[in-house]
């Protein structure tokens, strides 16, 4: 029964706070309650009133009611400090599990200046993150960076954001809840320190294992037009001047990457460990291979990415790893 009620409440809550990419705060999504000092303030007012009655202090009445008036008005002011603000979120940069996602929020204000607006992340257990504070100038906007802990890998929905303020008197806390629709990539945690690459069986099978450490460009195979991504060393400078003069393309030496350098990062090479640990190792390898400039390919159960290089490839590999699930073949 309780579970049913609970699920109904959760459903109602989710329907009330639909995932959106922008968040406009207005009458219907700002909540306000007295804060703890606010309750203490009420108590103080009670005592002040009693003292005024008992000593028949006209000025005491005045003080009590002045404070009551200011406190009541501060409810309106606190609510107004959020009302009319609009927020949007830049698509967050990918992060690694166990690290942080950096959320960049923009707060737009078409009204009066706002002060002491705090934004924090609420995790699934309702726990509180660190609050990032900002002041928003009148008719302007503010940039806020919020750290959001990335616990799991995958293409994740962003956690609920809580926007709150206690300005001006701190007697009330007004808050609003925003569930962003944007999703963020969280790659598996990279193993630290990275293990050395496994000498893959695939390379051995192909009989292309060569002894010496060959650097790219050593096996000369031919010439072709310049393509983005080619290194300057590959350019045939002797012909370059002519090419530039005639408006033609630059020519580069085409090299065939040595087979031993055509690295295959295979899930099979990490066998004997837990699934997440295996993904961690592969992630570390992808990063290492990318930074060392080796072309690399990636094999996970059911999917394979041909060897290549560059930020796009790196991203594709990491996204593949982020979503990788253990297959039957593994």
């Amino acid at each position: 029964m309780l579970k049913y009620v609970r699920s109904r409440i959760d459903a109602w809550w989710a329907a009330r706070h639909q995932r959106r990419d922008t968040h406009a705060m207005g009458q219907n999504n700002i909540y306000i309650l007295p804060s703890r000092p606010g309750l203490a303030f009420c108590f103080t007012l009670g005592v002040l009133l009693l003292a005024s009655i008992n000593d028949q202090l006209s000025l005491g009445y005045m003080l009590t009611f002045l404070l009551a008036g200011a406190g009541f008005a501060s409810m309106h002011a606190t609510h107004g400090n959020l009302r009319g603000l609009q927020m949007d979120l830049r698509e967050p940069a990918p992060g690694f599990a166990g690290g942080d996602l950096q959320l960049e929020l923009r707060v737009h204000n078409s009204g009066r200046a706002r002060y002491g607006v705090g934004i924090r992340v609420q995790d699934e257990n309702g726990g509180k993150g660190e609050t990032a504070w900002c002041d928003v100038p009148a008719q302007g906007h503010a940039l806020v960076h919020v750290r959001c802990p990335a616990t799991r890998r995958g293409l994740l929905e962003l956690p609920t954001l809580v926007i709150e303020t206690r300005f001006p008197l701190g007697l009330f806390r007004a808050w609003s809840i925003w569930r962003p629709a944007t999703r963020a990539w969280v790659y598996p945690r990279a193993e630290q320190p990275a293990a050395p690459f496994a000498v893959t069986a695939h390379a051995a099978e192909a009989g292309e294992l060569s002894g010496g450490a060959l650097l790219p460009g050593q096996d000369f195979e031919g010439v072709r037009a310049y393509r983005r991504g080619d290194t300057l060393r590959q350019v045939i400078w002797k012909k370059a001047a002519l090419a530039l003069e005639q408006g033609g393309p630059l020519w580069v030496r085409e090299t065939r990457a040595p087979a031993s350098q055509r690295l295959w990062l295979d899930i099979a090479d990490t066998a004997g460990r837990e699934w997440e640990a295996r993904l961690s190792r592969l992630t570390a390898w992808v990063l290492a291979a990318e930074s060392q400039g080796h072309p690399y390919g990636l094999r996970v159960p059911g999917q394979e990415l041909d060897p290549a290089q560059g930020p796009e490839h790196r991203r594709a590999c990491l996204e593949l790893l982020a979503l990788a699930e253990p297959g039957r073949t593994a």
Partner: protein
Amino acid sequence: MSLISERLARLPRETRDTLFLLLTITATVAPHADHLPLWCSALTALMLLWRAQLAWRGASLPGRWPLVGLLVITAGLTWLSYRSLLGREPGITLLTLLMALKTLELRARRDAFVVFFLGFFLVLTSFLYSQSLLTAVWMLLCVWALLSALVLAQMPIGQPSLLLAARQAARTTLLGLPLMLALFFLFPRIAPLWGIPADAVGKTGLSNRLDFGAMSEIANDDSIAMRLRFEGPAPPSSALYFRGPVLSDFDGRSWRPSNRVFPLREAAPRVSGRATSVEVTLEPLRIPVLPLLELGSEAPNAIWTLDQLTLRRGVDLQWLADRPVTERLRFTHQVWLQHEHGPLKTSGALSEYVVLPLNRNPRSLAWARQLKASLGPEATAQARVDAVLSHIRTNDFNYTLEPGRYGELTPHLIDEFWFDRRLGFCEHFAAAFVVMLRAMDVPARIVTGFQGVDPVPQDGYLVVRNSNAHAWAEYWSERRGWVRVDPTAAVAPERISAGRSLQPAPGAIAGVLGSMNPALWRGLRDGWETLNNRWQQLVLNYSRGQQFDLLKSLGWQQPDWTALGQLIAGLILTATLVLWGWMRWQARPRDAWTRQRQRLVRELRQAGIEASETQGPRRWAELLSDRHGAAAAGLVELLLGLEASRYAASAAPASWTERRLWWQRFAAASRELRAGAR
């Protein structure tokens, strides 16, 4: 000097906020220095200075143990000063010290809140001592500063200027002003919920008992006790006796009211001449007696209901309340300056007024018996009184407010006064005089109250101050009843005729100014007191009576609690409606374009177009011509015009009139379209 100001300008925020808060606290505490023990003021100042120095240097705060030590020391000193930690004075002492101590561990924002709440209490407690206009203004500034500090604490980043915080605090307070005024005028003024601890010992003023010579020195309390306004010319100051507690029981040291078991049936005063109407504003004197001008025509045991106070006329013709009067009262009553009262023939009841304590003051009794014998057995009471008065007048009795302490060496206080020291003020003279009369078998009693007024009226009001407190005597004489006699007048006639015992000692500035330019000083003082009186009449005297007067002026015939309740309920209802309307207004889309778009979508749906807000005018125009063809040409043109005016590169926002014109044309075209479709 410039170094300090430079440093001030570049203070880190934390330090600046702390210094501001310390300054605010100092301003709040300062008015208390007047009535706190010296050690408390000094210790508070030291602690605040210490904290300021720590903030200035950015040093760390003291640990827990020094603070606990300080707390124990302050509590101990308070106990030593008052022999108690409860009650008003020790309470305020402790509050002040706690406030200073709290600043020494002011770290988190929660601590700051504690300081604010203590600050508000300190502001309130200073009203216990003074509610003058000056206090009000000073305290308003303190509250403003406290609220500004509160605002600062809610601005977690950057270095917001103090001015900004002060403006925000003022803005919030001003927004709350209507509520404050409504509460102030409408909150029911109820009677005190519990008794007020007796205080104000050692001040001139009235009390329900008179200790002979216990007070060696009277504080010259210059505060105002009441203000009067006569309808018609005011009587001379020397005729103004305000009858307070009447004291007839003497135990050798103190005088108390009669505790007669069977009340006497006394006739009403016999008044003659013309009655004078007088409007009285009485400050709370915290005694159960109303000191009114002698004498009204009401008989003893008459009942008078004033606000929520029930007053009964005592047998001695004073007005007794059922509890100490703790509120300011304003009322009008009738007085007759010519009156007689008391029985005309001797009766057994009068024997109470010749009782003297046994074995006390033998020299006085002997002296009185001797005087009585020398006058002869047939001498009237009047003759005996005259004889005693002439003795006072002709011997070297001295009127002084600092007579020293009586009764330290002897239980025979009257003897000591009458023969040995001959120094005293009204209480001594009245008491000794009554003892002498009683020793001569003349019934006599002491009447306390006020005598005289300020020589110059203020703003049309005659002012009676607490320093006008006075004691005189009444003796009984056959065929006349009780007769007032003022023995102090025999030794210090100027006390009675001028109405003032001593001028209050002027403050330093007043002294200098007064000697340099007396006229200017008098003008300043009078102007200020006039302003203060207006303040008293308008704000401080606002009580139940005025509350009901307000209701009456708002149209209630018979103002009472129900009417007040109706008014409050009505106001709450109105406020709720206004608030609700305002919230609806707030909830509407802010910018004109959104509102226009919503209205357009509504209109277009009436025309049968499935328009949505996410589409633009061009899309709506397309939908319209798809649906209605050429009939919608007018609307299409208007919509395209709207698009052009809204999205054109150099478009200025449309003015209100332009928009209105556009809507008129749109509505006309829309009507045409619908008429055509039908």
